[in-house]
């Protein structure tokens, strides 16, 4: 099982703030890597740095053997990354259909892929011609994820998909992510909700203060409450 994405010694500055302070992280092919950590640890910045939205000031990022840290965002995206930002960033002025048309970069929408997406996101079919701005928060999240998977991508970067969603919708999202996994996708998933992490994570990396503090596999962390306390105590408290 090879490493699809590797970050080595990545530093990122935003203005005069030094956010990432030497991040080393790998995402293995065909597996879901959970990026955990408390608020402000640098998880979102890590994903944005991978996408080139906040370029790394030093360090290397390698995707499938190619260095990408110096590329512009569109070039990084076309190398096969689907990105679901924390803000969902659906184009609210456009319809659901138009959002997906833009996400399907290489050509017309593929009916089979759409049918697969509609299986677990029926709302998108229902509101196909409505403008995305009129969708509910959960539906916007579904649309944002659908945009990332409307065409096959090597790697999915998903930033806190369950944030602010009702428990019932979180359940549906877990099912959906599990289904995407089953199709063999490689996912780097930022999550604060440990239940979600436990349900779909294979590997885990815990961040704090702009560095990776712990890496291992999910079952180990899930079984070891002492480890959880140690690395995630703050984050779990913050969630209750």
């Amino acid at each position: 099982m090879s490493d699809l994405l590797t970050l080595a010694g990545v530093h990122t500055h935003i203005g005069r703030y030094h956010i990432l302070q030497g991040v080393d992280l790998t995402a293995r092919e065909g597996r879901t890597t959970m990026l955990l950590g408390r608020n402000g640890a640098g998880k979102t910045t890590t994903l944005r740095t991978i996408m080139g939205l906040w370029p790394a000031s030093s360090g290397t990022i390698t995707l499938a053997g190619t260095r990408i840290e110096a590329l512009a965002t569109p070039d990084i995206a076309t190398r096969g990354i689907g990105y679901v930002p924390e803000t969902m960033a659906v184009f609210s002025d456009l319809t659901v259909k138009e959002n997906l048309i833009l996400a399907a970069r290489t050509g017309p929408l593929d009916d089979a892929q759409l049918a697969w997406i509609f299986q677990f996101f029926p709302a998108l079919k229902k509101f196909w011609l409505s403008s995305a701005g009129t969708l509910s928060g959960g539906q916007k999240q579904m649309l944002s994820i659908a945009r990332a998977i409307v065409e096959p991508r090597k790697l999915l970067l998903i930033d806190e998909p369950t944030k602010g969603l009702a428990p019932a919708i979180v359940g549906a999202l877990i099912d959906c992510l599990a289904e995407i996994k089953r199709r063999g996708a490689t996912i780097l998933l930022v999550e604060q909700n440990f239940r979600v992490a436990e349900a779909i994570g294979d590997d885990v990396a815990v961040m704090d203060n702009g560095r990776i503090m712990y890496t291992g596999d999910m079952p180990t962390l899930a079984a070891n409450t002492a480890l959880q306390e140690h690395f995630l105590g703050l984050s779990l408290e913050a969630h209750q």
Partner: protein
Amino acid sequence: MSELAADEALPEPPRDIVPAALPIVLALVMLPLSGSASSWVTLTVASLAMGMMIFIMASGLTLVFGLMDVLNFGHGAFIAVGAYVATLAFGPLAAWMQSDSLLDNLAALLPAGLLAMAVSGALGAVFERVLILPVYGQHLKQILITMGGLIVAEQSLYALWGPQQIPLPLPGALRGSFILGDIAIAKYRVLAMVVGLVVFVGTLLVLNRTKVGLLIRAGVENREMVEALGYRVRRLFLGVFMVGSALAGLGGVMWGLYREQIHASMGGDLMILIFIVVIIGGLGSVTGCFIGAILVAMVANYGGFLLPKLALVSNILLMVAILMWRPRGLYPVTNR
């Protein structure tokens, strides 16, 4: 795709038609105030024609701002350059211009307009690459640099063509008016309205029916996400900038013919009107820009008729009134 028609759509939020109704209301209010039906028609047609021409000039500016957050104070340069370049074409085509046949006239106007658009568009590309690219994302420097660009362009026109006004007579078949009873409608104004409508409808079609249009609309809302989907927004922006400049050039030719004279300072002078229009419309909104342009033209024409002294500041008063009502313009663009 067609088999995936929606089974049902969400209830759309009620369409915001109040701004769109404003010009109509204004025209109706003017009806009893204008004294006679014929002067009302004349004023209204004048307003619509003037508004459409302003829209043609302003539409590019509003999109450029919406897409890349670039405030181009040099947009007026393209207007003046377009008008001056057209005179180059009118020279050799003078015979067709003076002819009384509409076809001959159009045979002169069309190449002149296309030439103006081509040169303005090319100048726009240079402007974007040389002046705006290095100060991208810095509003203060953008304003200063593009202002400098406007001055240099204006002064170059003076240096090349001399400081005097250049007459630009209307072609033969477009002089005079259509007479319907006691109502007279200037022929050129009808042409201006037709061209303006074509540009407006064309812009809306492109924005709503093509993938490039979808990208522009999406980019106005969230440029970062469009890039994260793998599209080069910078290249898209250059395209929009060039088209916007070309339209400004076309507007310059039309405005020059409307006034029957051109002057190198026309770009700078019109810039003020254009700023008022894009502010009123909501920066980034093409529909808002269209309505704003018509409102500004109506206030200028109606105001000039009712209270000539007031017309001097009527645009400012209109802008203040609209911004009091909607601080971000008639159709504020989301995310700004």
